[in-house]
């Protein structure tokens, strides 16, 4: 049992961190939020440096470094509150497609995403994601060789801008799960006025969207296991990004406590502030440990991966709650302002908490798995 980063992994982390610090300052995130800008970074670097291909086997044009290496890169994206298509394309779209794609689809979607030639989004049911479930809001029916999608998927990350949308729908006849890839232009996207504009969300309407056989993944009706496995990867990635974001907010808060002076001392001299900082630290350590365990369980396809993914999301939820609360509080009046960066981290963390099932939803899942 070893959950420490190896020297090679540390090199990867350091290089990703250095690039993100250079290419993705918080000013870039703020520009998206305030002015609706659409920066090419850090996605451009991710493509050029091969981060997009880390967890794709070499046979499909990837680097074959495994999910744990990808997870460490995602954590660094969280540290930098990086915007852009990386999270949705590489940790949501790609894992789902890869689970069931045939040879042609592997080339058309997996290889293309791994090279950064296309971006992707994943349209699932976030409210039921912790249970790997799907509501009734989107249905697929057979029409000759093709399938037709009718209904709605809400809160799809990058749903209004990704090139391709991987869709999970209820299959009419069997009530099973069907998986499809549709081009973004085929759906009607309505941008959500979201909490964190650097993580854009859209409601997607499917009005008789016809899916040709070449875009049907696996056997419609029998794809629940694949959906579950993809959701586990997306969930663990969201937890890891959340851990990274919380780590930076903790670091910035501790830095503030060391420099902001009142009553003749830095405020971090006072125990009331020190103990809050420690409570934040404990939560970040707990969430990172749990997320690393889940990352390894997924990478090694361990039997505990479902449980581990829910544990990681639940722990990340606990973490963001304390870190956001105390992070704002310790920053005092400045933490309440728009011009401070504190809210950028808080909004990112809250967004990640809500995606792919909240803390309480994942704890219910844990309770189910423990047969309580």
């Amino acid at each position, binding site marked *: *049992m*070893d*959950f*420490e*980063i*190896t020297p090679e*992994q540390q090199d990867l982390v350091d290089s990703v961190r250095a690039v993100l610090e250079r290419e993705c300052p918080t000013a870039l995130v703020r520009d998206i939020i305030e002015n609706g800008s659409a920066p090419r970074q850090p996605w451009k670097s991710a493509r050029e440096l091969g981060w997009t291909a880390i967890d794709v086997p070499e046979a499909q044009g990837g680097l074959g470094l495994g999910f*744990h290496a990808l997870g460490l890169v995602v954590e660094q994206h969280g540290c930098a509150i990086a915007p852009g298509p990386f999270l949705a394309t590489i940790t949501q779209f790609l894992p789902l497609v890869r689970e069931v794609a045939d040879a042609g689809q592997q080339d058309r979607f997996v290889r293309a995403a791994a090279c950064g030639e296309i971006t992707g989004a994943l349209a699932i049911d976030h409210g039921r994601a912790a249970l790997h479930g799907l509501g009734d809001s989107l249905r697929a029916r057979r029409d000759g060789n093709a399938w037709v999608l009718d209904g709605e998927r809400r809160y799809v990350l990058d749903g209004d801008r990704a090139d391709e949308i991987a869709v999970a729908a209820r299959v009419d006849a069997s009530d099973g799960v069907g998986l499809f890839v549709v081009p973004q232009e085929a759906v009607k996207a309505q941008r959500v006025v979201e909490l964190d504009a650097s993580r854009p969300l859209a409601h997607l309407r499917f009005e008789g969207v016809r899916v040709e056989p070449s875009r049907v993944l696996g056997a419609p009706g029998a794809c629940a296991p694949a959906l579950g496995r993809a959701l586990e990867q997306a969930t663990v990635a969201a937890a890891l990004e959340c851990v990274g974001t919380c780590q930076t907010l903790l670091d910035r808060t*501790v830095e503030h*406590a*060391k420099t902001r002076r009142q009553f003749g*001392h*830095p405020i*971090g*001299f006072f*125990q009331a*502030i*020190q*103990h809050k*900082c*420690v*409570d934040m*630290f*404990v939560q970040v*350590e*707990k969430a990172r*440990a*749990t997320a*690393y*365990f889940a990352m*390894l*369980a997924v990478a*090694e396809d*361990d039997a505990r991966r479902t449980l581990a993914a829910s*544990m990681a999301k*639940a*722990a990340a939820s*606990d973490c963001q709650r304390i870190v956001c609360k105390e992070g704002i509080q310790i920053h005092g009046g400045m933490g309440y302002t728009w011009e401070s960066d504190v809210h950028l981290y808080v909004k990112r963390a809250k967004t990640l908490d809500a995606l792919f099932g909240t803390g*309480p939803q994942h*704890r*219910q899942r*844990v*309770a189910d798995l*423990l*047969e*309580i």
Partner: protein
Amino acid sequence: MQLHYDAKTEEFRSELRAWLATNQPDVEEMRAEPSTSSAHLTGWSRRWQRRLFDAGLLVPGWPRELGGRNLGPVQQLVYHEEMARIPVRRTTNPQGLGIVAPSIQDYGSEFLKRKYLVPTLRAEISWCLGMSEPGAGSDLASLSTRAQVHDDHFTVHGQKIWTSGAHHSDYCFCFVRTDPDAPKHRGISVLIVDMKAKGVSTRPLPALHGRDDADFNEVFFDGVVVPRDHLVGALNHGWSISAGSLAHERGMVWLSSAAYLDDMVERLRKLARTMGSDGSRIGESGTFRDELASVYVDAQAMWIMGYRGFAKFAKGNISPEHSLLKLFSSEVAQRAARLAAEAQGIDALDNEAPRLAYTEDTAMPWIRRYLQTFASTISAGASEIQRNIIAERVLGLPRR
């Protein structure tokens, strides 16, 4: 990063399991003669510790002559994993084996090693730790028990408190002030005091959860004569021993806390299947399920954080994990016990406890267990002290 141990380590685990299966004390034997304090060596506990010593399975990182087999850190970790999973601890005098023996090994003279080390390891003698005093709790360096230095002996006057097992122990590993004029950390020495010496007296101090549970004592020293050769380490250098003593096995002491949390989770799962005082199954309550899942996640996180700290420890890196793990596990355990007691409703008030001291109190009522958890959040550096330590040493916040 890996989720599994290598084959050689797993082979050692199997061998250890087989040995434990045949050598573990018998439940009836333990029940017939319960150990009632942390320094109470019973017939079965002496025989059990002696078997571990002879098999080289008492302190596995040590050489053969000291009850070990020179195991490396990873195999020691596996050893502690397995030992945490059996219903009996390797000793009924944990402070003797875990703190006094390694301190004597590190700091004691050849004379003290010969006289005390092996007998301690073989459970022939038992120990208490004379540390806290009425005026020196979390601030241990303020201790005022005084030892006057003479040519061939010391004379000790003063009082200790919270001294676990003092009424059953043969010797006290006692922190005393030998230079009252030096700065407080620099005037402390360690003496080995014979608990049967003239002038030593003890008064049991039962814990809040049960008057019959008296592990703690007050210990009084009234002109106790201690031979000069019973000084451990150099005169006035006792503070470094206190830091060193508590650091032993720090890379692995968390295992017993993690195993304790696992045990609590199992008990809570059993509790979930029972009927609450409102006639419905406790596990049907959404709040109970939520909170139990939360305790479970934290218990699992405790293991993983422990392994992460261990990896640093094994590489010789200083890690903050000891304070983190101590703080975290004690607070989770308290929350777990409170959850259970609250879920029981009115039934929580039935405080009848069978007297079974040999194991982690098989049938202890939850409310009583809840009160008992405060031992962990207060002793060995209260939670507030652990937070101070992490704030200063890990986060680098200004020292007060």
